[in-house]
C-alpha cells in the first residue's frame, strides 16, 4: 500500500546505517606495538675452591665456538666471581694455568647447560691432584619469608667441617670438596660457626627474608675462614600483576565516529520531509474533495 512506502524506506535506510556502523566498529584501530624480542638468558659464576691449586685463567666458550666468550684471568683460590648474564645454551668452561696461552690444552674442562632464568656456579674443587670442575645449580627462590643457606666445604686443612647456624646444623662433618643442598632457615642475622677437628671460626651473617646464600668454608693460612655469598634476593611480597600508573592525559582519544550520527540525522530529516510532503499532499486532496462536495 501507498502509505507503507516511507516505512519500508525507513527500514532500508536504517539497515544501511547499521551496516555502516558495524563496518566502522570493525575497522577501529586495534594495532598494538608488539613487545621487542628478547633473548632468554641465565646466570653463571665461576669459582676457584681448590686450596693447593695455583691460580688459573678460566675460559667460557659457547659450544661450537672456539673463541672464548669470557676470560677471567688469574683466578686464585677462594675467588668467586659475580654472576655473568649469559644467553641460554650449552657452554664449555675450561681452566688453564694462569698466563698459559689460550691455544694450550686446558687443565680441566666441563660443559654446562644454561637454562632461562636459572643460575649456576662452576667451581674448581678438590685437591690439585684430583682437581675437578663441579657444576652447581643455584636456587633463586625461597619459601615465603624464609632464607635458604647451603655450604661448600673448601678447606683442605680440615678434611671434615661442621657448620652451625646457632643451634641448627647446616652441614655435619662435611667432607672437603662437597656441597650441601639448601637448608631453609628463619631470616635474620645469623651467627655462623664452622668447626673442624682442631680449628674453628665464626661470622655474623645477614640472612634477610627471601634471599639465598652459599657459605664457603676456606683455608686461610693457619686457620679456617667463612666467605658468605648472597646467591639471590627477591621481594618480601610479590605484588600481584601490573601497576595502575596512568590517568590517560596523554592518550589521544578520537571522539566516536560522527558518521552513524550524521547518517541518522540525514535519514530522520528525510523521513520527516517525506512524511510532511505526503501529509500536505493528502490535505490538499481533502480540501479539494471538500470544496468539490460543497
Amino acid at each position, binding site marked *: 500500500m501507498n502509505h507503507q512506502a516511507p516505512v519500508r524506506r525507513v527500514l532500508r535506510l536504517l539497515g544501511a546505517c547499521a551496516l555502516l556502523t558495524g563496518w566502522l566498529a570493525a575497522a577501529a584501530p586495534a594495532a598494538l606495538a608488539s613487545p621487542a624480542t628478547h633473548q632468554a638468558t641465565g646466570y653463571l659464576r665461576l669459582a676457584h675452591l681448590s686450596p693447593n691449586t695455583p691460580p688459573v685463567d678460566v675460559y667460557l666458550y659457547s659450544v661450537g665456538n672456539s673463541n672464548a666468550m669470557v676470560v677471567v684471568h688469574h683466578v686464585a683460590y677462594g675467588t668467586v666471581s659475580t654472576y655473568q648474564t649469559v644467553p641460554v645454551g650449552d657452554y664449555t668452561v675450561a681452566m688453564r694455568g694462569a698466563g698459559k696461552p689460550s691455544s694450550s690444552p686446558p687443565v680441566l674442562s666441563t660443559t654446562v647447560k644454561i637454562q632461562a632464568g636459572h643460575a649456576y656456579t662452576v667451581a674448581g674443587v678438590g685437591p690439585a691432584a684430583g682437581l675437578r670442575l663441579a657444576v652447581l645449580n643455584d636456587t633463586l*627462590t625461597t619459601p615465603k619469608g624464609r632464607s635458604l643457606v647451603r655450604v661448600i666445604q673448601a678447606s683442605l686443612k680440615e678434611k671434615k667441617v661442621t657448620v652451625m647456624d646457632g643451634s641448627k646444623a647446616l652441614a655435619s662433618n662435611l667432607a672437603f670438596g662437597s656441597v650441601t643442598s639448601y637448608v631453609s632457615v628463619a631470616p635474620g642475622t645469623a651467627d655462623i660457626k664452622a668447626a673442624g677437628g682442631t680449628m674453628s671460626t665464626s661470622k655474623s651473617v645477614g640472612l634477610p627474608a627471601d634471599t639465598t646464600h652459599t657459605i664457603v668454608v676456606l683455608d686461610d693460612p693457619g686457620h679456617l675462614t667463612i666467605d658468605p655469598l648472597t646467591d639471590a634476593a627477591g621481594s618480601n*611480597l*610479590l605484588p600481584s600483576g601490573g601497576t595502575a600508573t596512568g590517568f590517560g*592525559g596523554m592518550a589521544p582519544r578520537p*571522539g566516536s565516529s560522527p558518521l552513524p550520527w550524521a547518517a541518522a540525522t540525514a535519514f*530522520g530529516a528525510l523521513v520527516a520531509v517525506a512524511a510532511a510532503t505526503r*501529509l500536505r499532499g493528502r490535505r490538499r486532496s481533502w480540501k479539494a474533495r471538500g470544496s468539490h462536495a460543497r
Partner: protein
Amino acid sequence: MGLTSRGPRPSGPRLADAGAGTAPARRKHRRPHLSLLALVGRPAVVAAGIGVVLAGSGVAGLLMASHRGYTPPRVGPVKPVLAPAGRPQTPVPQTSAHASAPVSLTIPSIGVRSRLVRLGITKSGALQVPATTTVAGWYTGSPRPGAIGSSVIVGHVDSSTGPGIFYRLHLLHPSNLIYVRQKDGRLAVFRVNSVHQYTKRGFPTVKVYGPAPTPQLRLITCGGTFDVQTGHYLSNIVVYATMAS
C-alpha cells in the same frame, strides 16, 4: 511541521460533537481524532514523528561524539638533565648489605630527575603507585637499588591532563644509563637491557618482581591503549636494567 499541517482539531468529546448534528458532508471529510489509537491509522504522521526523533537524536549524537574526543597537550622536547656527580657504587656487591636506601632517580637520556617516594602494597595485593604523577617511587618490599635482586621503581606515564614522570620511559634503549642516588651519597648506576610492553592481563609477575642473583632494576609505568570506560591503560611498560660494572 507534520503535526501542524494536520486538519482542524475537535474541541469537545466525540459524542458531543456527533450530537451537535454537524452536516453529514462535513463530517465525512473530518479526519479521525488525535489519539494514540487514531495515530495507528495515520502512517504518515507516525513516519514524520520517527523522522523528527531520529534527526534529533542524530544531532545529539553528533554533539556527544565531538565532545568525547580528546587531544592531549603538546609536550616540549626532553629537558636536559646531567648525569649526577658522585662516587659510583663499585664493585658489584656479592652480599645484600651493600646498598643504602635510595633517595633519587636520574635518567639523563629521557630527562627524568625525581626524588623517590616509598611504596608498599595495596589491600588488593597490587603495587602501590605514587600519590602524584610527578615523582617516582621505590617499592620498599623489593631489594634496594644496587643490592642483589630486582629493585622495583614505579612512576606514572601521565596525569589526567598531561605527562607524568615516566612519560618517555618507553623511549629508553639498551645501554642507556639510569642513576639512583643512595642515602649515603653514593650512586648505583644501571644499564638498560631491554624495554617490554605487557598487557596487564598477561603481566609476567615473577619475571618482573621475582628474585635475581645480580643487582637489577625494573622501571614500570603504563602504556598501550587507554580504556576510557575503566580509566586505565591496558598495558604496562617495563624497563629491565642491570648494574653497570
